């Protein structure tokens, strides 16, 4: 770790003074290995008004400092947006979730191993240095939305659930002005600047996430597939919410995780499903339309199949085709 100044923000305008630290569960790891080496840290954890979950226009406003544990356990969240609760609980470990914040979770950095290793070229860490993941070991990389400068995936589970739920990110700038950005517009693709990951400008602070009204009467799931049963980042994940009328799919919301530089959405799939009768055949047909625009890193090709099949598994669960009481289903989510 390089020596740094520590600023405890008392007012929103202090935020512009350095790199924001919230729970520190991601940032400190990166600082220890000098992937990030800020001259100053701004600790936002004493700022007022960011630590509550409040009812808001029929939905919820989750303050940026509310911990992952608190959100996941909140009775209103569990009742109205169970998908979000499940997604959070599918991530990290209890200890990390106790410390991790809503804002920090959205802004956590990729887990591309080359980003983590300062002996390797990485455009995200050191703009213009190249991308060592290309031609390297790339099992965790993205298959959608990548660029020739960066193939990395965004690892957040929470953000995928929020994207499916059409949440908005509330951003406050140094002058105290607030704007709301849909989750999908909050992240930027890598293009030629993979180091710039969101629309946040200098001095901008994520102050909350706004959840719209609950999707009443829908079944929800967060289906995360990973290399071990718990405490691992997703290989792929599917967040889904479905309203059925008899055998007919009336409404669907879907987002896919760990396959793109941000939560991935695909309207085509939704259109193919809505108004149709649930069946394996339908899901298989819809799954086939999940096609990367460019050939993925060879180590990541498996994600195409895995994503499609996880999508089918999730849809079977959401539409009642699969007996969701099947063995260990609950453990697969914990």
């Amino acid at each position, binding site marked *: *770790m*390089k*020596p740094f100044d520590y600023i405890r923000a008392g007012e929103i305008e202090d935020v512009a003074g350095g790199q924001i630290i919230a729970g520190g569960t991601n940032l400190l790891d990166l600082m*220890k*290995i*000098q992937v990030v080496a800020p001259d100053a840290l701004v600790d936002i954890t004493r700022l007022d008004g960011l630590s509550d979950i409040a009812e808001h226009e029929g939905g919820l406003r989750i303050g940026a400092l509310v911990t992952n544990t608190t959100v996941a356990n909140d009775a209103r969240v569990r009742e109205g947006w169970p998908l979000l609760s499940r997604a959070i609980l599918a991530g990290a470990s209890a200890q990390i979730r106790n410390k991790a914040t809503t804002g920090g979770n959205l802004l956590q950095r990729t*887990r591309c*191993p*080359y980003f*983590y*290793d*300062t*002996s*390797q070229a990485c455009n995200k860490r050191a703009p213009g240095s190249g991308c*060592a993941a290309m*031609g*390297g*070991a790339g*099992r965790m990389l993205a298959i959608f939305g990548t660029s020739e400068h960066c193939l990395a995936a965004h690892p957040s589970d929470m953000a995928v659930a929020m994207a499916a739920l059409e949440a908005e990110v509330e951003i406050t700038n140094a002058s105290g002005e607030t704007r709301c950005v849909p989750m999908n517009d909050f992240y930027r693709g890598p293009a030629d600047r993979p180091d710039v990951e969101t629309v946040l400008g200098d001095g901008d602070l994520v102050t909350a996430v706004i959840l719209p009204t609950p999707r009443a009467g829908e079944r929800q799931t967060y*289906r995360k*597939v*990973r*290399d*071990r*049963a*718990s*405490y*691992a*980042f997703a*290989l792929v994940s599917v967040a889904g919410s479905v309203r059925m009328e008899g055998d007919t799919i009336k409404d669907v919301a879907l987002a896919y995780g760990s396959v793109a530089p941000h939560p991935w959405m695909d309207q085509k799939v939704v259109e193919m499903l809505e108004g149709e009768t649930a069946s394996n055949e339908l899901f298989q047909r819809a799954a086939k339309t999940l096609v990367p625009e460019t050939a993925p890193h060879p180590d990541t090709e*498996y*994600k195409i*199949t*895995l994503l499609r*099949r*996880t999508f*089918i*598994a999730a849809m*079977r669960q959401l539409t009642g085709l*699969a*007996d*969701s*009481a*099947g*063995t*260990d*289903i609950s*453990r*697969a989510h*914990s």
Partner: protein
Amino acid sequence: MKDHFTMDAPQPRLLDEMKQGVIGTPMDRPDGPQKVSGTAGYAADHTTENMVHGVLVRATITRGRVRQIDKSSVEAIDGVIDVITDARMIRNPAQGMAGSAPVQPGDAVHYHGQPIAVVVAETFEAARDAAQRLAVHYETEEAAVTPETSTDVETGEPETAGDFEAAWSGSEVTVDKTYTTGAHAAAAMEPHAAIAEWKDGAVTLRSALQMVRFNKKELADTLGIDPSNVRILAPFIGGGFGSKLGLGPEAAAAAIAAEKLGRPVRVVMTRQNVFDTVLRRSETSQRVRFGATKAGKITAIAHDDRVSNIDGEGFAEPVTQASQFLYGADGLSFTQTLARIATTPAGSVRAPGEAVGMLAFEAALDELAEKLGIDPVQLRLDNLPETHPMDGRPYSARRLADCLKDGAERFGWADRGAPGSRREGDWQIGMGVASAARANMLIKSSSRVRLTGNRAIVETDMTDIGTGTYAILAQIAAEALGLDPSHVEVRLGDSDLPGASGSGGSFGANSAGSATFLAAKKIRARIAEALGCAEDSLTLQNGLARGDNREAALTDLVTEEFLEEATVKAGKTSESHFSSGFGAHFAEVAVHEWTGEVRVRRMLGVMSMGRILNEKTARSQAIGGMIWGIGSALTEEMQSDPRDGHVVTRDLANYHVPAHADVPGQMQVVFLEERDDYANPIQTKGIGELGISGAGGAILNAIAHATGRRVYDYPATPDRVLAALDA
């Protein structure tokens, strides 16, 4: 007085005749409270006032030479004292029981991640900062980093019995399959650490080391000093699994820096250092061939493997160790190929050989069973050889058949049904079996026992790497001397104490335990003499000595210390008989038909591993091994870059040891009663590694039973399972 005992003949079961009744009991480990309260001092905990901190600098090229280290690049960092390079630094940890320095590369770089210097500073933070920012200039050379591209590949002579080719070509049914396993890291919880301090030309090293007797020589040889000037202290070790068998680069660096600076130096590896430079288990490629008659008699067995290591290391993963003695055949053949690659060096990781060899071997046998239409348990039972198939030695004690039968009964094996026939929702359920085997050893060991009144002290340089040595040595001495175990103090991990085997190869309890037993037995003789009875009529229990109608309290009888030391070593019984632990693993898994996820639902290990000294610590060892079986079957793999060979999975978020959620609630272990009279004077066998050997095989066979498809590349992560399902 010393007593050198050589294991030349089977030994009487004296421990069964003794009366204290503590052997085998599930006694809590005496060091437990210290460990859970954080008062057990691990290597890095022994800070002293004047101490400074060292952090290893890693090479960021694969092969070549350090041309220049630019110290000025870090001089401005507050607290930095020195950047030290030295011709005596070591490239990687010594191999187990080496007793001499590993490769000392000077300014040469042999793999990406090799320690090339140590930065010393007043604080750990400053040292780590400087180690990361140090400017190093290299000359680079080309080097192969994958076995497939290596140009230095050597195939050994086949080890054979009978005529494999003839047996193979005459076989009515055959299986010929190739498997791969990923490289493994020991991933011990405690990172490797050392504190060195010099006084009057002698160095004291506190380090996390498994084999103090050998480590002392390794450090002396590394530094070019006489072993009498080296003392090693390792009373507590936070897990080893082979990764702390040999002296490591952090210890050499600490000793060299402490000497140069005249201050105690602590070097703790970062987790990334550990993955970069601590000996890994080689990845393997294995071709297994079984030939059999239609009736299910195995006629031919061949198991050929390819492993890797860096040049200069003598170790090659002994993949086929258990394949050579589990089943009989008319012809057997085993050939190993070793590819030299410029990557993190390879060495012993828990159950070297069996841990990965048995994944492939037991999976291939399962496939043979399926082809023959014979139950896999039955096929194993039908092919147990009379004697060691390679050399004809009789087995000293082998209850493999009982383990298989007992396990099948307990596990409900009879209900398992046809492959692919059971499902719950989208999950397919299957059961698998595999044999367990791990060769047993006795290594020269000494121990000293001191008795005053009804209190005893056991002293040996043996280590406790979390396995329970403190508990079992106390139990052995307590049993032999008729004491409550709480009256026995055990002192370990100090090279000034009598030299023992150390912890490795599952031989620690056998070896140090036998030496302790023999030393205590000498004390029994002295007690008998003091009491005035014949030694074989002496009974010791609860501090009372009785015999030939005499009785006295030890507190009256032993008013001045009785001190005895004993040394045990292997002898003729290891040539006349073959000793191994055996067992049977059973696993039930659920495989998700859409996602390829595998969940282990229950496991059972039935094991015959000689006399059990402590039911609780033995069970913990067995379960720990079985959990690693889950890891090697499903989750664990060190990945490296195909171009420069650097380790890509450099932390515990990316190197996936099983998490709690991977381990089923039902992890059952059953020990079948056994005494191995040919093994050692206490009739024990190694325990630490039998649990892992074969456990993963049972899981992989259960996947095949659940789905009707086989995975050949391990770990069987969801992508690989799906590929098999789609194949």
